[in-house]
């Protein structure tokens, strides 16, 4: 990885890259809120250039991280860093809000050391996603049968589920399935999942 900090540089880049992955395309703008140690040391630890690098889809060993601000400007991505004073559960926390003319997305991630991260919130849904495995995220209406349909579809393609979480904002309202799987999922599968009843959106994180 590129230094100087595995949690504040490499981990930060990973959080940015997962956000980009979930958004599915290059965002046009990004508002990055930093909490705890991230807020205090982001300049010295190059957390800022790392997150922007992640949003540009750079890996943790990509030398372009160092010049990510210039690269972002070239690609027309505006960004802003907002150090927050609110206390959070984990000292290395970032909330990334990204978007373009079509939609926007909010994601909260923590960097737990050695470059490992966890995504703890997506668009207001609490979740726990390591980013270590390929994953599928399914936004759906909170109706019976949704989970069974999705699981059946994955079974059909012989995709094994390693970890799964389901959450909803309110009963009968919008819900989110987070499914960590053992292998990368083809677009064909995503398309089929999208066609299922009561499914709003399907996104994936590749390995």
């Amino acid at each position: 990885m590129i230094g100087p900090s595995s949690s504040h540089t490499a981990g930060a880049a990973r959080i940015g890259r997962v956000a980009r992955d979930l958004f599915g395309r290059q965002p046009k703008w990004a508002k990055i809120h930093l909490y705890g140690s991230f807020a205090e040391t982001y300049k010295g630890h190059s957390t800022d250039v790392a997150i922007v690098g992640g949003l540009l889809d750079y890996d943790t060993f990509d030398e372009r991280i160092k010049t990510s601000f210039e690269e972002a400007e070239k690609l027309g991505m505006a960004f802003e860093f907002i150090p927050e004073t609110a206390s959070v559960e984990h000292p290395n926390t970032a909330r990334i809000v990204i978007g373009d003319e079509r939609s926007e997305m909010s994601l909260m991630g923590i960097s737990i050391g050695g470059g490992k991260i966890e995504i703890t919130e997506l668009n207001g849904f609490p979740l726990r996603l390591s980013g270590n495995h390929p994953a599928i995220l399914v936004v759906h209406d909170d109706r019976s049968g949704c989970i069974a349909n999705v699981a059946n579809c994955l079974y059909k393609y012989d995709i094994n589920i390693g970890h799964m979480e389901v959450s909803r904002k309110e009963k009968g309202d919008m819900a989110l399935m987070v499914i960590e799987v053992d292998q990368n999922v083809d677009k064909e599968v995503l398309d089929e999942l999208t066609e299922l009843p009561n499914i709003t959106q399907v996104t994936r994180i590749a390995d």
Partner: protein
Amino acid sequence: MEPLFRNVKELVARAEQENKLISEIMIEQEMLVTDRPREDIMKQMDRNLTVMEEAVEKGLKGVHSVSGLTGGDAVLLQAYMEKGNTLSGNLLLDAVSKAVATNEVNAAMGTICATPTAGSAGVVPGTLFAVKNQLNPTREQMIRYLFTSGAFGFVVANNASISGAEGGCQAEVGSAAGMAAAAIVEMAGGTPQQSSEAFAITLKNMLGLVCDPVAGLVEVPCVKRNAMGAANSVVAADMALAGVTSRIPCDEVISAMYEIGKSMPSALRETAKGGLAATPTGKWLEAKIFGGSVVGSGQ
């Protein structure tokens, strides 16, 4: 999936029962958890070793960080060693200089391998490339050194923390130094139990170490803490190989480190608000590098 070991006690017990090296247990665990063949896992670690070699090489030629706070010390140390009348001995200083080299490269945003973190990336390779000249290991033994370190790092990361923001520098350089000490013991022909003793002795002597980076940079005091972490681990490895044991078992030392980290005020956990970062000179350097006023320094 159930790992082959969850703590150091189980790791050592398994190694002893099966009459295997700690590195072997770690390789088997990786094969089990990731469901990949041995060859893949060895190749991946070989690549890590190459990254470490290149970082040391680069640092020994002399690098400087953008802030200008660190760089060039690895070169100074190597030149001093060449004069041939060092007090602490060439192996120890070689380890120190190569740890410094790695962290100088890290501070300059170069490519390194996190062991277990980027800020503590110097200790494991620094000691490896120093003891290498004395023990003449094969390439495979050098790769195994990293697996032995990794086995102990795995235990710390899963039972405590390796993050400075959570546990202070003791969680980063303290863990790195313990990992290195355990690996030196295995490479020198010590037993799995002696690796465990070496880890415990090292970490015990780094308990309480805070994370207080000047200007929030991973430079002062991080580079020199890696230097002393490396020295600490070489000496602890020698102590364990001599038969010295730790009265407090390794896993309990790791728990103590975690508890101490949790009770550390946040000013001393990677926020650049306390310790050396809050000294008049630390504040002055911060203002010089990032601009801003130094009024109210040492808050």
